């Protein structure tokens, strides 16, 4: 269990609380920048970003499968970079922008990676899929013309028990191509 002291220590260690008043163990007020909107809420300091997304914010597209950063199912973007949201306390997010799978599509337009995942059947049970898509979409931001090895490296921390890896690679390469055209 994470207690208030360890939260404060974590805050001090990162030196990155952006002036937010963090206390505990009771709920504290924070404002998260989620998918382009400010969301003010009160959270217990012990809650991870993944728990807050899935709980009070009802953004259930972010999945928890191992809850210790080993499977990457909980991947979201923090200021555009993929992170495991189960490994970060919500109170540590500060003013950084959080993007979840729900924020990837623009209105009704799917992100090219999402579209390609459908077309190339890079989805089976779908539980690892949101995290996998977040990492592949981030790859295309960093490396617009990736090769298969780049995709495998981008998803090397992701576990999929259904065996979607080959189709994830095909889909992401196709998405990169579609994006250029």
């Amino acid at each position, binding site marked *: 269990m994470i207690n208030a002291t360890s939260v404060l220590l974590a805050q001090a260690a990162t030196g990155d609380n952006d002036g937010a008043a963090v206390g505990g163990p009771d709920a504290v007020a924070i404002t998260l920048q989620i998918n382009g909107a400010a969301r003010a809420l009160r959270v217990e300091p012990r809650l991870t970003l993944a728990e807050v997304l899935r709980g009070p914010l009802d953004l259930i597209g972010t*999945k928890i499968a*191992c809850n210790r950063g080993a499977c990457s199912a909980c991947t979201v973007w923090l200021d555009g970079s993929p992170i495991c949201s189960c490994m970060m306390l919500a109170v540590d997010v500060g003013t950084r922008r959080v993007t979840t799978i729900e924020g990837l599509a623009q209105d009704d337009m799917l992100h090219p990676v999402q579209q390609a995942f459908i077309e190339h*059947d890079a989805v089976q049970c*779908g539980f690892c899929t949101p995290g996998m898509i977040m990492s592949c979409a981030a790859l295309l931001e960093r490396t617009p013309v990736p090769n298969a090895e780049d995709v*495998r490296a981008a998803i*090397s921390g992701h576990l999929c028990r259904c065996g979607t*890896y080959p189709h994830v690679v095909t889909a992401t390469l196709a998405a990169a191509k579609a994006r250029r055209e």
Partner: protein
Amino acid sequence: MARAPLRTETFPFGIANLGLGKVERQVPADEPPPLPPNAELSVIGQPALRHDGRAKVTGAVRFTTDISLPGMLYARVLRSPLPHARVRSIDTSVAARHPGVRAILPIASPADAPSTTVRYIGEPVAAIAAVSMAAAEEALRLIHVDYQSLPFVAEMDRARAQAAPLVYESTKEAPGGHPSGWPAAANLPLNGNVRGPSVSRRGDLTQGFADADVVVEGEYSTQVQTHCCLEPHAIVADWREDGLTVYMSTQYTTGVRHELAEEFGLPLNQVRVVVNAMGGGFGSKSSLGNYGRIAVDLSRRGQAPVHLVLDREEEQMDSGNRPGTWQRLRIGAKRDGALTAISLSSFGTAGVGLGAGVGFNAELLYACPNFSGAQHDVFINAGPGCAMRAPGNTPGAFGLEIAIDELAERLAIDPLALRNRIDPSAVRREERRIGAERIGWQRRHAPGADSGPIKRGLGVAQSIWMANVQLDSSCEVRVMRDGSVEVLSSVQDIGTGTGTVMAQTVAEVFGLRPEDITVRIGDTDFPAGPPSYGSRATASITPPARTAAWQVLQSLLREAALALNTAPEDLVARDGKILVRDDPNRGMRFAEAAARLRTDRISAVASRNDDYSGFLRRMGDAALAQHPLGGVQFAEVAVDTETGKVRVERVVAVQDCGRPINPRQIESQVHGGILMGLSYALFEDRILDQHTGRMVNPDLEHYKLVGASDAPAIDLVVLENYQGNSATDAYGIAEPANIATAPAIANAVYNAIGVRLRSLPMTPASILGALGRIPQRS
């Protein structure tokens, strides 16, 4: 039982790329005419996109773990820290006063339970439901349990010894039912910790070995593998005065409903089981489970919905596993390869559970007049095993297919030529031919022939799996007055795309597109569907889906015929229209025909009939089709003899599943089977500490799973194998795709390095040990 009237029909028969023949079958009068081969169809056999693809890629789809009901409580389970103990008392009085606690369930309490013995670390002892997960976890720590520690045994070989501590004191305490593995024998004797043997025999083994020119003998062992579903086992139980609703990540809504009704004394009409989407199961979510009972009981006690999701450590320790096995095979053969005798003896452990057999590969895969098999379960103090992707046959194939490779070498016959001699299956013969060509089998060199530190090799192995069918499989098809269509069944989609193949099947009948069909599944309010295990969902649910759609279409054609001044039998449904067959300029849109209906909707419910050629065997609602499923896989590996690292560079898989309905989804499933098999071959291992009985790698970091960078190039060919046996003639693929991978890799590793590994997983340490580069572990 009165049999429905039959009519005679002529079906396509055989393997499509070898040229199709015909076969006559007697077909129930209320079933549709024969479905032509895929080449003549427009939707079946095409790579339709998943009906729920968009919901899955946007994160909108709600899994059981994502369900939240008003007033819902969160449950946590207190689990035994000891591998074997008697529970003297459980004191929950302090926990009960903890803020937020709403219900407490003592499970192993002498006051409340018949059994006060816990037999593995992680066995449930008590459970709490509270207003938050954190409150439940805090309260768990306030429960005081007084344990009397008992002697335990956590290793199979030690458990087999006469003086070993007993996991079960008597046969009465031990589980005695049908193990999930093969053979499924009940009421076997228990001696110490050893149950069995389950025996199977034919011919005269002694004579068979006397007739042999060559005998090979080997011992093979396989590790315990855990399922590692990404979605944990999860349930939200909602007990109310007017009935119980359970949202559960389950492979079998119908089965869980029956279990709940029996367990809690409820009539079936007051139990509803729902699974909207499920994040994998692989056998481990086949039944209600202890966690399911706990959640329902807590909901009853707490008078509120209860959410229970296992954490990853609980997943690893107490959600089932593929049992570890040890097997000894002796195979006798004539100089030309003809088998004269096969003897199999196996011991396996499913912890405190059953089902650690090694399947029926040795008994049934090859022609051999004399066979004897004796399979034993050994109890140890570890979490119970359960079915996992081709239970029995996956570990069994590891033994048999290596032994056949060893026999081929002894006989100086190519492994494929030997199989051509001893394998009676025409399907696998064609699969071997195609696979050998694709992998470039003629490049295969003598074992260990490569010079240099990195050595390459080729290997092959085969699979056999029964074509399972669930007869209690029903489906409803509705056409609404606006022309929209629904298909409904309680069958669930485990991730294989069951809903999509149902939509394709119905769309083919109506001449519509798969996306025109709304799929409603995973809810026992709909007609009872089959389980998603045993590779039987497609075989069981697509025939009734086609039959129901065909029956509804007949009603629709009657309405259209009136409007078109023709007879219903002169009409066809095609391209979104109802057309006059011989005059396609005459017709109407599908929706126009539907608009002529006199009622809001027309609908039909159909159920799975027997296979037209009958079954090999029938066990209650389940049955085995006449023709088993096969599959042949080839692996190409590179072994670094300095690091011991095996890299699987390429796998060629040639599989069969009757009529393939969705080649893209089949490819996805075969990828899953191969990658799970590769992971089994090289990485996965549940490690129990012998001194504490504790799993030392109960997570996803130290329990090693295959990752994207380990994935080989996969080349798949799926045969169309028509047997004229049902309205769709479709069978399963998930399990056959998993069986042959590990032995194919093992045989390739041997071909690469010239040293035989007979134990899984083939880690760098075991490779270096086999090469004599490091002292071998005892």
